[in-house]
Every structure is written in structure tokens, then in C-alpha cells.
């Protein structure tokens, strides 16, 4: 289980997270929605240990990760898989080498090849392991990034804006993949997005981030029928309303 207690983070004078609280249960598919620049990426970077909060605690399976020493933290975060917004594939490595990167400690080359091919099959891109990332389209990069994340069989997988910048059909392909990965036994998925089509499709629960706090959580149906004016304005995509535009 993941639990954030009173997490605060500022960059200079800009307070991004303000005493934020959130719980994510094991095996859950949680989507965090919010405006661009609302701190969604900052939030998941805290969960994965890339950023340290100014105040508050973050527990993963009962372990407080903000106090872990560097060496333990590097070991600990191996249980995470992360799909970055732009894919973040390593430019200098082939697709196959990118996917094998997370399982590089395995000695058996055949086993590594088998996992690479299986992961590429899972995302519907068989036979591209020799291509370089620069030869892939945006959608392919995202799918390879998902393949790379699932190859190491993570317990927690996080997606940073998985459908941003994709056409609606490719976005749906990614949504289906997110659902498929979420159905794998024991995997907890956290998706951050501002794409409501994607959020309704892939989530078992949705949390709304606004002004540095989680202002509402609920099932997709609950969010659709919410009375909260801020949430309503966001999900309906209106420029007029209580949300302060930056």
C-alpha cells in the first residue's frame, strides 16, 4: 500500500503540494487528474523517491521512503515501474537493450531475450527490438516505455500522462494497455493525466488534485456526478468557473 501523509513541497516561492494526503491500496488502478502545472508529476516523483518532500511522510508497504539512505532507496525503487511522459527511452540503446535494461542483472542471455520479446508482444510491437528509439513514432515510444516498465515485473507501475500528444486511436491503444497491465496479478497502477476519456476508461478510482491537495476521490461514476464545482469545471473542460487559471 502507498500512503502519503501531509506531504508538502515548494520550489522557491511556488508551493506545489500543500499538506497532501493520499492512500493507494494494493492492486488498485488509481488515476490522479488535475490541471497542467497542478503538481501531478511532482506528486508521483515523490512516490518513486525522485523528489523528497519539504514536510510529511511517504509510506510504501509500511516503509517510510523519505528517510531511506541512498543505497537502500536505489534498491527499494526497483519494485517500481515508471512510464514517462515522453517515453524517456535511452537514446543510445536499441529498443531491445532499453527493455533489457531493467533485467540486466539476469545472467542468462536467452532468458533476457525471451522477456524482451514477450514484453514487446504484450504491447503489440513484436520484432522491433533492433530499432533505435529515434526510429519510433510517439505512440510506439510510449508502448516501448510500457514494455520496458513491465519487463522487470514491478509491483507498482506509474504512468505520467500516457496519452498526451497521441491521436485518439493510439490513445485508446495505450488505454487498453494500461488496463491490461493493471489486470496483471499484484500490480498497483497510478496514472496521472488530464485526459478525461482516458481517466474514465482506465481507472477504478479517480483522485482530483487541485491547489496542492487532493480535493476529491471516488469511483469514475462518482466523479462524473460530483457536486464539487471545481471538479465539475475541470471534467467538463470549461474556462469559466472557480478554478484559478495561471
Amino acid at each position, binding site marked *: 500500500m502507498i500512503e502519503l501523509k501531509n506531504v508538502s513541497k515548494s520550489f522557491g516561492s511556488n508551493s506545489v503540494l500543500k499538506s497532501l494526503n493520499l492512500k493507494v491500496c494494493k492492486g488498485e488502478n488509481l488515476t490522479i487528474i488535475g490541471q497542467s502545472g497542478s503538481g501531478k508529476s511532482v506528486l508521483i*516523483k515523490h512516490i*518513486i*523517491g*525522485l523528489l523528497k518532500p519539504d514536510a510529511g511522510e511517504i509510506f510504501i508497504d509500511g516503509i517510510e521512503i523519505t528517510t531511506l539512505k*541512498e543505497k537502500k532507496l*536505489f*534498491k527499494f*525503487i*526497483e519494485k*517500481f*515501474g*515508471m512510464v*514517462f*511522459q*515522453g517515453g*524517456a*527511452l*535511452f*537514446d543510445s540503446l536499441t529498443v531491445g537493450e532499453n527493455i533489457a*535494461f*531493467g533485467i540486466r542483472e539476469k545472467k542468462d542471455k536467452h532468458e533476457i531475450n525471451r522477456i524482451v520479446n514477450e514484453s514487446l508482444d504484450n504491447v503489440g510491437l513484436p520484432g522491433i527490438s533492433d530499432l533505435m528509439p529515434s526510429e519510433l513514432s510517439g505512440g510506439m515510444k510510449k508502448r516501448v516505455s510500457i514494455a520496458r516498465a513491465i519487463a*522487470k515485473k514491478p509491483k507498482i507501475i506509474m504512468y505520467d500522462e500516457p496519452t498526451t500528444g497521441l491521436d485518439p486511436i493510439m490513445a485508446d491503444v495505450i488505454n487498453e494497455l494500461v488496463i491490461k497491465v493493471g489486470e496483471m496479478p499484484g500490480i498497483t497502477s497510478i496514472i496521472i493525466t488530464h485526459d478525461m476519456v482516458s481517466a474514465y476508461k482506465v481507472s477504478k478510482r479517480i483522485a482530483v488534485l487541485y491547489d496542492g491537495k487532493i480535493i476529491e476521490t471516488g469511483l469514475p461514476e462518482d466523479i462524473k456526478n460530483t457536486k464539487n464545482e471545481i471538479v465539475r469545471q475541470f471534467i467538463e473542460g470549461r474556462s469559466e468557473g472557480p478554478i484559478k487559471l495561471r
Partner: protein
Amino acid sequence: MIKFRRSLESFASNVGEIIVLMFKSIFFIFQKPFNLRRIVNHIYIDGVKSMPVVLLTAVFTGAVLTLQSFFALNRLGYETFTGSLVGVSLTKELIPVLTGLMISGRVGASYSAEIGTMKVSEQIDALFTFGVNPIKYLISPRVVALMIMLPMLTLFGDFVGIFSGKIIADVVCRQNPVLFEHQLLASLEFWDVISGLIKSVFFGLTIAVIGSYFGLKTEGGAEGVGRSTTMAVVVASIIILVSDFFWSKILPFTLR
């Protein structure tokens, strides 16, 4: 006044971060796994492939130094000492410093641009999510490679520069090449060459750490990468030029 104070604080903080990065990158060299493949790769790409640049620099530095020394010494009637002056100047100062500056432009800039691009495209964060320490994986192999290759390139430059000087002395200045060689060997000491090589080990460390540091500090897309690259070359070059003076004072054999 407040602006000046902030600049001073920012400068002190950057210096502190660079020193910490330097010690961390050296510390991780000795931690398993040893990344030998990456070290060899950098030795080839950043060292061996820099040989043409060093060759060109050394050829013309040796040539112009010989030419100017000969003309200047000729006015005083001491042109027979051209070989001595060229040998000592090249091996102790010119080749180590100019090689450092050239490698700073070629390799330091590429370190900053590559690591900076990785930073803005979140590849550094991705490394972290695989339990890989970016300093150990990206910077330590570069530090090792340049600390090995810069002295090698300097030694190569020493030979090329002296050879080039000898040819110019013979062909352009019409000086007996045997005399040039004799004067050079008579005045050039083993420690002159070694002091140049010791400096270049430090220059290699400087270029790798500064290039990587500004790469890691990159923010703001393509413009940020450009800014980091410029800063990496400028700062590394300044450190090389300033530290060269202090090395010349500190290294005991230079006082002999």
C-alpha cells in the same frame, strides 16, 4: 547589494556541488559493478577519436613556437637554443593546456549536451527508476576515461609538437636538425614531461566533472542544453587556465 549577495551565494553553492560531484564520481569508480565496457567505450570515443584534433593543435603550436622563438632568439644571437625553448615550453605548458582546452571544447561540450538532453527528456529520472545511480553509471566512466586519456593525448601532442618544431627549424629557419635535437635533449628533463602529464590528469578530471555537472543542472529544453554546454566549456577552460599557473607553482619539479 542583495543581487550581489545572491550571486555570491549561488556561486558558492555551485562550487560546493561541483566538489561533491567530483568526490562522488571518484568514489563510485571503486564500487561494484565496475562498468568496464562503458569506460573502454569512452576511452575510444572521447580519447582515441580526439587524436586528429590534438594532432592538428600540436603540429601548428610546435611550428609557430619554433618560428617565433627562432626569430626572437636570433636577434640576440641565441638561435641555437631554439630547441631547448621549444621542448620545455611545449611539454611543460603549451601542449597540456592547449590539449585540455581542445578536449574541453570537443568532449566537455558533448558530455554536457548529452547528459543535459538526458536530463530534459527524463532519461536521468528513468535511470533512477531502474535502481541505477546516474553518477556511477554516467559520470564515473567518463571521469576515468578522461583521466587516462588526457595524459595520453598530451604525450602524443608532445611528440607531434616537437617533431613539427624540428621540421620547421630545419626547413624554414634553416637550422641544423641535429643541433635542434641536441639542444632539446640537453635541456629537457624527464620531470618536465611528467609535470605536464600530471597537470593533464587534473585537467581530464576537471573537464569530465564540469561537463557532467552542467549537464545534470540543465533545465528548460533545447535552450537550456545550449546554455549548459556553453557554461561547461567556459568554466572548464577558465579552471584549466587558472589552475595551470598554480600547478606550475605547486609541482616541486618545476622549481628545480
